């Protein structure tokens, strides 16, 4: 009750000092992603509140009443620094290229393998696992490319196992022609689209 009164007195812009039951804060996006948004539905409040700017927050009381506003960015970072520091290292991708229509690595990609293996070694104490994702260019049907990309991914998976990686740590997936690196029309041969992405996480 006192909390609610304080919130009313403090006004909409400055959120009350009493601690909320629940809190959601949107953080700025990373180097490869926009800030994004979080949509919030609470039992005590009609409709949906959307947090879409960095450091915007929602404070929710025990009855599900939501108050939104802007959090103090510096205070926030200080408070959650230990939590943010303990996030897992972000996944790192290595891209390997192939010869036309085959599952043989292009010569320019051979030097990438030791770098990849080195990254895997560095993450061994952090429960490293690897996802190999195959991609094709837009030549051929969607189904054929799904199969070809998976086959490429499995070839690299097999290669990594031969290089000493535990089979249990590596999985493979095919994305077909869904992630064209260079946008081409349908049925266009393109060297850079024919690739395997090895994600070390």
């Amino acid at each position: 009750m006192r909390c609610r009164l304080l919130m009313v007195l403090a006004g909409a812009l400055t959120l009350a000092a009493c601690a909320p039951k629940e809190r959601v804060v949107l953080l700025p996006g990373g180097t490869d992603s926009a800030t994004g948004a979080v949509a919030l539905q609470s039992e005590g409040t009609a409709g949906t509140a959307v947090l879409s700017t960095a450091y915007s927050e929602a404070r929710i009381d025990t009855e599900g009443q939501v108050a939104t506003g802007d959090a103090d960015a510096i205070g926030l970072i200080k408070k959650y620094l230990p939590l943010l520091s303990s996030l897992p290292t972000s996944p790192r991708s290595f891209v390997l290229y192939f010869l036309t229509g085959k599952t043989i690595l292009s010569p320019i990609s051979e030097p990438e393998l030791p770098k990849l293996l080195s990254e895997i070694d560095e993450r061994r104490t952090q429960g490293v696992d690897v996802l190999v994702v195959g991609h094709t260019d837009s030549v051929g049907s969607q189904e054929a490319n799904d199969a070809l990309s998976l086959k490429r991914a499995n070839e690299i998976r097999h290669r990594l196992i031969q290089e000493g990686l535990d089979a249990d740590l590596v999985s493979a997936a095919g994305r077909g022609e869904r992630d064209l690196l260079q946008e081409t029309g349908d049925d266009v041969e393109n060297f850079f689209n024919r690739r395997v992405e090895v994600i070390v996480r």
Partner: protein
Amino acid sequence: MAPIKVSAAGVLASLAILAALFVLCPASEAWAEIGRVKKARGEAFIERAGVENIPAAPGVKLETKDILVTGPDGRISVTFIDNSRFAAGPDSRVTLEQFEFNSTTHEGEFQMRVEQGSLAIISGQIAKHEADAMKVHTPTSILGVRGTRFIVEVRP
């Protein structure tokens, strides 16, 4: 009905093919794994139906319905197979209620429940593919994730 002739060579050949397939075939479809613990500290474990509490340690594989629990000094950090990841702080209790992910199409559904504690979350391919396909449930609310980084805190 005519008897089927089986030769030793035939059986060996079949076994060899099966063994080769086992190594070469995609393992991802057969796995129940939805993510792995990457970091852990202090009192931190996983509750899983039918087994004793699993101490959280780097490399531990997580499954749907797992409950991540941390004590006053505990932390657990996880990366999921859609590349989403989170860090759970002390005194947390988080259930991985639902996780489905198609690694070809990126369609999926990821629902977790935060009963108490604090979580820093970075969304991945499930959320990127479809808004609100990743959801976080708190005692009073449902958060639809539309990418990418946020913090959720629930006081007990």
